[in-house]
Each structure stands twice: as C-alpha cells, then as structure tokens.
C-alpha cells in the first residue's frame, strides 16, 4: 500500500450477508454469510485476480463493489469516494466508471434487442450522445472488440458464444469506464475461444488503461491474466500476493492444495508433482465453521484454529495470509 495515489479501489472489511426468511410471518432465521469481512486494494491499471471454488463469495464480492447489493458492513472506496455512502443519483453517475462483464453470454444479452441497441443503451441512459453519435460510437466499439460493424442490426441469437462475449465487452466499454469487474468471462466458452477473449481483454487493458477485478475459478487463467491474486475460501480471503508469490510459494494450506489439484496439460510434468487432495466438501456458508473457515478440511489444523479467527497477516512484503500456522512455509 505504498503509494496512496496509485490505489483505485480500496475495499475494507466488506461484509455481505443475505438474510434467510422462514415461516408464515417471514421471520429472519439466519443468514448466508456470502462475504465475511474482505479487505483488499486494486491499483490503477492492474488486474487483481479473485479466485476460489463455487460458493466462496467471489461473485458476491464483485457485485457488492458495484453496489448491485447493499453491503451489510464495510467500505468500498473508489477513487477517493466511499461508494457505500453514495445515494441515488450520485451512485448512478458513479456507475459510469464501474462496469461489469458477466459469465453467461447467453443470459446477459437481451434477446429482443439488436446489438446496436444493447451497446448503445448505456449511452442513452446517461444521455451522453445524440442518435448519430451513438451510431458512430457503437460502430467504433464493435471495431474495438474485433466484430464487423455491419453486424450492428443483428440479434444476439445470430452470434456464437465467443462473439456474444465480445458484445458484452463492447457494452461494458461504452461509457469509457476505468474499472471493470470481469465475472468468469470465459468459463462458458470453448477452449479455443477462451484464448481469443483473454487476448482481447489484455489488449483492451493496455489500450484504455483499464483496471480489472478478474473473478474466476480457473487457476491457470488467473495466473495468466493477473498481476496480483487473492484466493477466497468461504467468504474470506485466505491469501493475497503478487501472482508469482501466490503460484510459486503459496503460504496458505488451501492455496497449496488448490494449486496441486489443477491438472497440468503435460503428462511428464504432471507425473512429477506431489498432490494434496483435500477431503470433503466446502461447508455451508449459512453456518460457517468457527475460527478459521478452512479448518474442517485443513491438513494442518489444530485446536486454536476452531477457537480463533486467524488474522490476515503480512508474512512477506505484500504477501498476506490468514492462517495461524503459515509461518512454517516462509522459506
């Protein structure tokens, strides 16, 4: 956190609980602890990869940052402004700078709108251009994402998955945002198409100096695209550091197990690896384990792990870990 000016987004102790209502009078009987105290910063122009298994709260974190949900607690400071405190029109204006690319390119485009309507809609909503300018801008955006501008009047069903995801990218770029949450943008695509979209996202980042929060469950993709990586488990960040630190010398037992579970497309390398296979499933976020959330599956858990929540400590410069026993892995 050296250079304060360089930080575009600072998330502090973000908590997002979804209430569960039961019974005739709809009494609240519990809450899904989707995000349970998450803090991180994203620097200008960098990509922070947020990685974890399904249900770990990575998507909720991304959506809460854009205030698509009202957070239960915590601060989201974007460019010096706390988004949690913004109301109505102020927040609406702020959203121009924060955009999102969604996972499912089939569900996130309205099938009854043409491509030019979809990409042009943000421009109309924010009233930033007249009809002619919108048309020019849409054509320009289609060129940017390498689609033929002549397709502008077609409908989403006429496009393949990869092309639809490009349309989603063009829509996100329409208002010239500085920050984009990419929520699993490639996991619904075929392998050969994934690389096209990853390359496009990298090109656009350079071209427009974008900052990404890249949410994914695929550790290989996150390694490829991220500058820094945060690993989430059941609503908390287990480990956060630069990409090389996380992948070369992970300090949290969960990160270690996760990395060893990823298959490598190379039979010789794959045979050499030592694998740690985690037992059991991720516990329910309705009733997360006491103390450290990972302790029920952790190979090195001890008594203290069920009693005390591990602190998020900086064990190496800019390398943060939430584990009582991570010190043994330093060097």
């Amino acid at each position, binding site marked *: 956190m050296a250079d304060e000016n360089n930080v575009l987004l600072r998330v502090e102790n973000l908590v997002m609980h979804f209430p569960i209502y039961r019974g005739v009078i709809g009494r609240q009987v519990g809450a899904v602890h989707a995000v349970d105290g998450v803090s991180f910063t994203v620097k200008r122009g960098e990509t922070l990869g947020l990685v974890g298994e399904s249900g770990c709260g990575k998507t909720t974190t991304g959506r809460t940052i854009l205030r698509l949900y009202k957070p239960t607690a915590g601060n989201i400071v974007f460019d010096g402004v706390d988004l949690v405190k913004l109301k109505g029109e102020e927040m609406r204006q702020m959203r121009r700078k924060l955009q999102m690319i969604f996972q499912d390119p089939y569900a996130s485009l309205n099938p009854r709108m043409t491509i030019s309507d979809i990409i042009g809609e943000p421009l109309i909503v924010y009233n930033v251009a007249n009809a002619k300018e919108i048309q020019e801008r849409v054509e320009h955006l289609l060129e940017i994402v390498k689609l033929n501008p002549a397709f502008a009047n077609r409908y989403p069903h006429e496009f393949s998955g990869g092309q639809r995801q490009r349309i989603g990218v063009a829509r996100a770029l329409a208002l010239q945002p500085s920050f984009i949450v990419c929520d699993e943008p490639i996991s619904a695509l*075929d392998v050969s198409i994934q690389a*096209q979209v*990853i390359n496009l996202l990298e090109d656009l980042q350079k071209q427009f100096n974008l900052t990404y929060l890249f949410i994914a469950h695929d550790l290989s*993709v996150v390694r490829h695209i991220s500058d820094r990586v945060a690993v989430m488990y059941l609503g908390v960040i287990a480990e956060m550091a630069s990409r090389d630190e996380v992948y070369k010398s992970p300090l949290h037992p969960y990160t270690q197990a*996760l990395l060893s*579970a990823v298959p490598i*497309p190379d*039979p010789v390398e794959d045979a050499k690896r030592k694998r740690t296979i985690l037992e059991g499933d991720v516990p329910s976020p309705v009733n997360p384990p006491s103390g450290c959330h990972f302790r029920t599956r952790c190979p090195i858990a001890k008594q203290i792990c069920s009693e005390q929540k591990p602190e998020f400590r900086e064990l190496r410069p800019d390398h943060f870990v939430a584990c009582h026993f991570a010190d043994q892995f330093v060097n």
Partner: protein
Amino acid sequence: MPDLLLDVQGLETTFKTPDGVVHAVNGVSFGLKEGETLGVVGESGCGKTVTMMSVLRLIQSPPGKIVAGKAFFFGQDLLQISNEDIRHVRGAQISMIFQDPMTSLNPVLTIGYQMEEPLILHIGMSQKQARTRAAELLGMVGLPNAKERLNDYPHQFSGGMRQRVMIAMALSCSPQILIADEPTTALDVTIQAQITDLVKRLRDELGMAIIWITHDLGIVAGLAQRVIVMYGGYIIEEAPVRELYANPRHPYTLGLLGSLPRVDEKEHTRLFSIEGQPPVLYQKPEVCPFAPRCKWAIEHCWKENPMLESVAPEHRIACWVDTKTGRAL
C-alpha cells in the same frame, strides 16, 4: 484384431434438425484394449459424446440416426444386436457416467433404490443382497456412513458426492468398460481432484478399461494412456499420451495446447488463439473441416479431406501438412 476389447469402425451418426441434417460423427474408427484408459478430447459439438452414445445405442431416434459403422464387443456388433441384447450390455458390461450428476439421477427415488436396480436386473440378486452390495459399493467410492445414506434422495448429496454415487452405480456390475463423459466438468477443482484420484484407484483395483471424454487437456494428461482428438465429427489425431503432448502434429491439437494458460506458466506470453469457431456440419465435408481456421492450410486442404495416416509409431493424424516444416506431407 483379437486383443481389442472394443473395436469401432466407420461410425457415422446424423441428426435431423429443422435447419437440415447435422453430420455429428463422420466415420470414426478406434479400438480400445483391455484395461486401457483412452482419453477423447474435443470442444463442444465435435462429436465426442455422440460417438460414445452411438456405441451404446443411446442416441434418441428420431432425430438421431446411426447411418453406418460397426462396433465389435466380444465378437458381436453392438449396432446390430437386438434391443433386448444391448440392454444386457448397457450398465452391465459397458457402463457410462455423465457430466451432470444431478440430472442423471432420478430425484424422486432414493439412492438405495437406484443403486439396487442394476444389481437386481443384470446380476439377478435378491433385494436384500442388492442392498448389502449397494452399501459396499458406496463405501468403496468413499461415501461415509454408506448404509444410512442409501435412504437419502439425490438432493441431499453434494455435487461431488453425487458423482461418487454415479461411479458406484456404474461399477456395480463390474463392467469391462467404463465410459466417463466429462464427469468432473461440473465440479470444483478440489472435488475434481478427488474424483479423478478415485477413478485411478478403482481402475488399478478392478482393472477395467476406461474411455474418458473431456474438453480438458489437463485431466487427460494425468489419466489416459492414449488420446484421441476430435474435430467436426472426425478423429484428427491419435497418439499415446506422452507422444501427443511432446509431439503434437495436427494444427488443431497444436492450437489447443497453445491456447491453454498453464498453472505452471514460466513467463507471461500471449496465448495462441485459433480464430473463428467450430463448424456445424450440415453437409459431410469434402475438404478438411479445420481448413477455415487453420494457419497452416495449403491449397490441397481445400480440395480433399485428409484421412488418418501414421506419422510415427501409434501416432496418426488427419492432415495434409507437416506442421514441423509447414510443407505438404
């Protein structure tokens, strides 16, 4: 060839759709040896699932139709025998596990009931015997308190547990061949590791042959002995696993391997991307189906569809170009 457990020759399957007839599988031939693990790799729509479903005659007809081909298994052609006979093969001698464990289990029947069914049907066990065997099988795939869980319904299990149940069910009649159709795609990476580990252990204990269908070149690397790569309803490359990853020859295989980011990536390089997208074949192609996306394509690729030819021992590709030199083979 007597040493082949399953011998598929010239398989062709089509589907009638409102837009025309789709040629999903266009003359696929492969063999499976006893105890061997064969990986079948390809993107969605390449025909990998349809090939295996055709072999077991699980293609719904209409719209699907097996147009040509033979599939020999213990001397009989699975594509010719009666419906009654194939029922004794399915689930008993060749069994299949599917991608989505939620939709392939019946949600209104208990796990116990669904596990007993094949045992009673195929082996002729009594209900009581079947119950005991079902509990043993669940124990074998690592389900805790198996006996009590037989009375539970599928929704009471997690995704990984359901896939374990599916595996237990598939193995219940000790099949010679297990066909696994993307069984770990819907699962998280730590659970995926649990399942592949389980399958490896069971393979070594029970000695069955496995056909593992997947789009993930990573999983195949650690699991299979031999790999088939499919594209547009054709096998375009076939090789032993180490040979395939060390010396991929077909432009499509090269492209696939180059477009994969790796978790052990040494330095940041731009991913190789295959432009365009996989074809939907309304006509049986007369030229190479990969030619429109291929950066090695030469004139001849647009004239004739290449056949699978040997380029090294046990290594066959369907391509006119030598990707090592860029010249015609």
